[in-house]
């Protein structure tokens, strides 16, 4: 079933983010490269979207723009009604801090900090008191079943555990969206499935999740799949054969 116009119209009221005609250009010497070309899409509360595409399709650029790490060359981007495409560096940092939770392929934990300190990091930048930071970080670590590992440093944790800490870090600010870039790329299949299961339960708890991936297996769990090719949206559909993760069921 295509994600048709009337569907979009019906949802535009409750949308979290709206991208209209987003174009991102890179200049490489004389050449101009279109990383994204006139991309438009919107996302509602509690969606579970997979952004797919081969390398060079522009999915990383799209993720960076959605994540407010990068700004579009043309087009408008609104996040919960705020015009992100017109924000300065400081305001973008604020949006990233409060509204977006990042999960990376390489986890990106601070190696010399404990799990707790890693999860606290976004709260330091939002200026929370030390007590509140700790309470909320412990809460987030509990949500990802890592409550018994809070004093461990990344090198004392397995890959799956590290990614759970990273997910806790993304959750700790109670963001509007969780943006995961190839979150299972550095994990074996079994651990990867566990992480996908975790995303699924987070979704079921009401979180909005965007996963960028090139693996069909991962994308099948999402409720909506956006396929990019050569910087353009090739397909934007409701996932017809969505799989509920067995691990997610087991978790409960």
């Amino acid at each position, binding site marked *: 079933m295509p994600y048709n116009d009337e569907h979009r119209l019906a949802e535009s009221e409750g949308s979290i983010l709206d991208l209209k005609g987003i174009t991102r250009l890179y200049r490489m010497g004389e050449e101009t490269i279109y990383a994204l070309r006139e991309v438009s899409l919107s996302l509602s509360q509690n969606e579970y979207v997979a952004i797919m595409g081969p390398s060079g399709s522009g999915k990383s650029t799209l993720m960076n723009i959605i*994540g407010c790490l990068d700004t579009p060359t043309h087009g408008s981007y609104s996040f919960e009604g705020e015009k992100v495409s017109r924000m300065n*560096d400081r305001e973008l*940092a604020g949006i990233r801090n*409060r509204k977006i939770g990042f999960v990376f392929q390489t986890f*990106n934990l601070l190696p010399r900090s404990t799990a707790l300190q890693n999860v606290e990091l*976004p709260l330091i930048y939002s*200026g929370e008191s030390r007590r509140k930071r700790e309470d909320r970080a412990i809460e987030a670590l509990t949500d990802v079943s890592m409550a018994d590992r809070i004093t461990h440093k990344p090198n004392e944790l397995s890959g799956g555990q590290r990614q759970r800490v990273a997910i806790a870090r993304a959750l700790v600010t109670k963001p509007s969206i969780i943006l995961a870039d190839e979150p299972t790329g550095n994990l074996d299949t079994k651990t990867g499935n566990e992480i996908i299961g975790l995303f699924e339960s987070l979704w079921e708890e009401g979180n909005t999740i965007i996963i960028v991936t090139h693996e069909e297996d991962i994308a099948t769990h999402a409720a909506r799949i956006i396929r990019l090719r050569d910087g353009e949206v090739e397909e934007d559909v409701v996932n017809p054969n969505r799989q509920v993760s067995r691990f997610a069921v087991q978790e409960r």
Partner: protein
Amino acid sequence: MVQLRENIRPAFRALAANKMRATLTTLGVVIGIFFVLLMGWVLNGLDQAFTQSFAFFGDDILYIDKYDWSGQTDWMSQRNRPKIDMLQYDRFKERMLGAEYVVPTADRFSSDVRYGDLQLQGTMVYGTTSEYRDMYSGVMAEGRFFTEAENDLGTNVVVLGHNVHENLFPKGDALGRTIRIKGQPFTVIGVMPKRGTMLVDFIDNMSLIPIKRFFNIYGPRPGVTINVKAKSPEELENMKYEAIGVMRAVRSLAPEDDDNFGVNSQEMFSQFIDITRGVVWGIGLFMTGLAFLVGSIGIMNIMFVSVAERTKEIGLRKAVGATRSRILLQFLVESILLCLFGAMIGLVLTSLIAGFKDQVVSGLISLLSLVGLAEADTTVNLSFLSSTIPATQILIAVVVAVVVGVMAGIIPAFRASRLDPVEALRAE
């Protein structure tokens, strides 16, 4: 302030991860701070020593003498000036109305002051008048000073300086005894307390006798110094002009003639102090500057390395909401901590030297004597140096460390703050 605190812990962690590197990097700063503190310590000690030493000359007394004591004028050209004799003194005193006291002194080095078999080398014999005691209050420890009558008669009486007394009469029973100066018998009628200071101790090595007797013994050759005391320190400056005028009149100098005498005061020594200070400052500043230049280049370098190594971390921090200023602050704090760490080592080193100054200097001397640069038994009086570093010096060192930290860290920190988060996250 909260931001600062949040930055200190990770900065500590980052530095602790590379202890060896951090220590080596701060070497320049360590040396710099070491010099700053050492210099401050020495200057402080010198200042104290100078003020104490020269306070003895009095802030309300002029010394009119053949020579300028400041050393500003060529010594050789002053040699041909006429000496001041007692006749000129008498005329001067008669006309010098603005002064409270006008007292002559004449001095001679004497190797011939003896009591029984004891003979003193290198002491001084001073001739003066009975007014000397009134001019310098607190000049008597025991006994009495000579009277006007004894002065006029040229009686054989002597008042002993502190060291002379101690050396000739270890038991302290000098009063009433007879000593010999240049073979002449003198009765000890008084003893002076210790008046000398570190730099000016000749005063304790002198024996005071009536000036009339002095010229009897030593002949007319020694010149007189006229000690002129103002009624208050504030009037010293005015009195100086009066004294110059009177002295010129006494010597009948024509208006176009230069003064052929010196009018000296305690103030002249401050010039001497300033020169010494200047030399210490100059050397210290040069070495400190050099050390800090090397030190800050080292720190800047290591901060660049630190930024490069943690590019990915910077990307992550930006992704989770760190603004540019937070990143800037983080690396600036790290650089400042690095410098403060260096300052701390420098402080410990300097404190050790200050605490064990005597051992350090005697060690240096024996080292120098090994290569023949010093006599093995040389002793140095270090009492003018305190055995701790003054708090103000420590404060200055801390401020300097922070300034160097900011200067060395600002460019790397700025570069870190400007990193593009997408690029930074992609870094390995």
